[in-house]
């Protein structure tokens, strides 16, 4: 090594200073570019989903004056039995014929009847069940329009002609007539939030799937959080460091990366075939998802326990606390925020899972809203999958709307994870 004079050193530094600055800039630019790419992808995804799905919150509805005619209904009092047999579709057909008296032919009438949803008679039944005094009287009721009508009037906005599809010229004429008088308009789609699945898009809702997700997650949380935390405490605070605990640790890390369908197969073999639990039940779904989320929760809980400084343990020990007292009085409260964050992230992951549920029968058509953990149910992502696969045009926007609901639940969960951490976190 030769001794360099100060000027020589400076010369050398100055020589590649510019290129070092350049690479620095380039690196920073790359970072910004990758973030910009990510943001762009999110914006495109969200605008596509919201653009497609926002329409689903409004539903074409038709206003009709119905007469609860005892003769047409075929009943003279309102009770459970008569409501089952009453001819409500007759009443609606009569109302449609009165609205369009010029329609006479048999096939024309058939077409006229398809203006309103095939679920309309049940809307009417529910109204009469609630207000029995309406029997024999008339009232004005809004009915959900058929999905073909709904798709047609929603497409009118984009082009003058609109998507006719299966709508004939005659039917389009009726629709325009109703639109002009304001008897047909888009109203807020409450059905979407109160109903279970349906084959008729205008009667399909996410309530059953949302409740199914809720029950499944409840079971998952109730099982995976205590088990995961207990396992983490034992492994971190009690277990000796030997070959066995190393093996367990490697296995837990491995399980966290196992494809989720494997847990579904396991669930089918153990919970359904061996323990004979019912198919399609949130209980089994929750058990399977517990297996799936346990590794995540154990790993994050262990990390949270590790982050508690040893000085706290030593101080408590020094004061004469037993090991259990040290853990439950001092370490656990301090590690809780980290554990809760891990649990919520695990839950969010479980909420978006469909693959393991296929094997245990939760990829299913569920109309009745489940009332407990053993009722047949499905979950939100499965509902999205099933609607995305349906031929009816009106399901496209419902698919996107369901995605919006799922995303908002996820955002809510993740936001609460951040909030909890902020609130409970302590720094040393």
């Amino acid at each position: 090594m030769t001794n360099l004079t100060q000027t020589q050193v400076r010369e050398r530094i100055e020589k590649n200073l510019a290129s070092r600055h350049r690479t620095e800039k380039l690196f920073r630019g790359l970072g910004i570019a990758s973030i910009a790419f990510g943001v762009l992808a999110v914006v495109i995804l969200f605008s596509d989903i919201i653009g497609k799905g926002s329409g689903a919150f409004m539903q074409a509805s038709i206003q009709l004056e119905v007469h609860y005619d005892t003769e047409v209904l075929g009943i003279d009092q309102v009770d459970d039995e008569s409501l089952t047999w009453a001819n409500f579709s007759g009443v609606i057909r009569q109302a449609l014929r009165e609205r369009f008296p010029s329609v006479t032919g048999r096939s024309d009438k058939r077409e006229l009847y398809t203006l309103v949803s095939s679920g309309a008679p049940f809307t009417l039944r529910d109204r009469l069940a609630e207000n029995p005094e309406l029997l024999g009287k008339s009232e004005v009721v809004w009915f959900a329009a058929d999905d073909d009508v709904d798709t047609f009037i929603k497409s009118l906005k984009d082009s003058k002609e609109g998507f006719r599809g299966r709508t004939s010229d005659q039917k389009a004429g009726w629709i325009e007539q109703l639109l002009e008088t304001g008897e047909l308009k888009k109203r807020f789609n409450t059905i979407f939030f109160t109903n279970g699945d349906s084959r008729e898009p205008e009667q399909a809702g996410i309530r059953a799937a949302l409740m199914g997700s809720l029950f499944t997650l409840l079971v998952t949380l109730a099982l995976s959080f205590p088990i995961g935390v207990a396992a983490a405490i034992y492994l971190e605070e009690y277990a000796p460091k030997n070959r066995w605990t190393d093996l367990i640790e490697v296995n837990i890390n491995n399980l966290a990366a196992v494809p989720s369908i494997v847990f579904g197969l396991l669930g089918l073999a153990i919970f359904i075939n061996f323990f004979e639990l019912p198919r399609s039940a949130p209980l089994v779904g929750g058990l399977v998802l517990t297996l799936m989320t346990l590794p995540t929760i154990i790993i994050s809980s262990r990390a949270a326990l590790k982050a508690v400084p040893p000085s706290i343990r030593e101080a408590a020990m020094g004061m004469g606390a037993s090991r259990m007292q040290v853990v439950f009085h001092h370490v656990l409260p301090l590690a809780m925020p980290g554990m809760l964050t891990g649990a919520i992230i695990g839950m969010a992951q479980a909420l978006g899972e469909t693959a393991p549920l296929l094997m245990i029968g939760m990829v299913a058509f569920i109309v009745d809203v489940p009332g407990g953990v053993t009722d047949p149910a499905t979950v939100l992502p499965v509902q999205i999958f099933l609607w995305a696969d349906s031929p009816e045009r009106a399901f496209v926007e419902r698919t996107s709307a369901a995605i919006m609901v799922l995303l908002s639940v996820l955002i809510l969960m993740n936001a609460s994870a951040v909030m909890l951490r902020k609130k409970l976190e302590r720094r040393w």
Partner: protein
Amino acid sequence: MNKQILATSLAALTLATSQVAMAARDYISVVGSSTVYPFTTTVAERFSRATQFKTPVVESTGTGGGMKLFCQGVGESTADVTGASRRIKQSELEMCKGNGVDVVEVQIGYDGIVLANAKKATPFKLTRKDIFLALAKEVPNPNGSETLVANPYKTWKDVNPALPNTKIEVLGPPPTSGTRDAFAELAMEGGCKKFGWIKAMKKKDKSAYKAICHNVREDGAYVEAGENDNLIVNKLVANPNALGIFGFSFLDQNADKVQGSLIEDQAPTFDSIADQSYPVSRPLFIYVKKAHADVVPGIKQFLAEFTNERAWGDEGYLADKGMIPLPTEKRQKIATDVRKMNALSNLAAK
């Protein structure tokens, strides 16, 4: 705090399991084909509204997966009904019998398979032979000798001079799909049989014959586009040169975006599929577990609803959903057979 959580979760679990032990299944469990799923679910919904029974739970598992679940045995945890977009296979029937399951077969209607392209492109006029030559893995040597060569055709014009000079690009379902099976059997095998010497092979070497007629080329001309037919429709709109394979109901619902190709001069319409003049249509079935018919409440009524004219008739609500009804006499015969609940003994019985 932790102890409390543990105690409550334990309590919840014991409560839940005791509930399970008490409840016998009071709803019908249906599994099976995703093609039959829209129709079974429609009937399930109407059935539960018209009666006091709970809505049947309908799972979409695919035809093969459904058969496995269905043939597992008799008992509460097994399915009562399975939907199939093809007839039950002999091996599946034997598996069912081996597990003590007697099945009742009900044909419910037809489904047409269409080859469609974007509305803005010119419609195709194909024959089954064109389809076979364009999509098979190995085709008869173009020089006329009775040998097979790896599919040399690049454009539709190569296959048939009357067709446009565009690259062969067909989007279709993956091999796990029932639609793909049916397409291979009806469209490709239909074209394959036009070659006398291949047809003659059927008697001698059935598996070689099947391999020639059913194997789809893997050099990129046939693109596996997944099970989602809506996705295929969207891809066709984006790529006017491509053709797509999917069920008739998707064509019906997207008539503004795509058009069906004519096959043997027949356009895929409701009527041409119903009267069997459109050649690529397949029967749809449901299979019912005989032993469950008197145990699980509502199975007989569910079948009665399915085989009611208002459901599967010419103007029934299943026709609105895109299912092609059976001819009237056939419907009447099946409806009477269903009431008798005769178990299927072997496949030749039909």
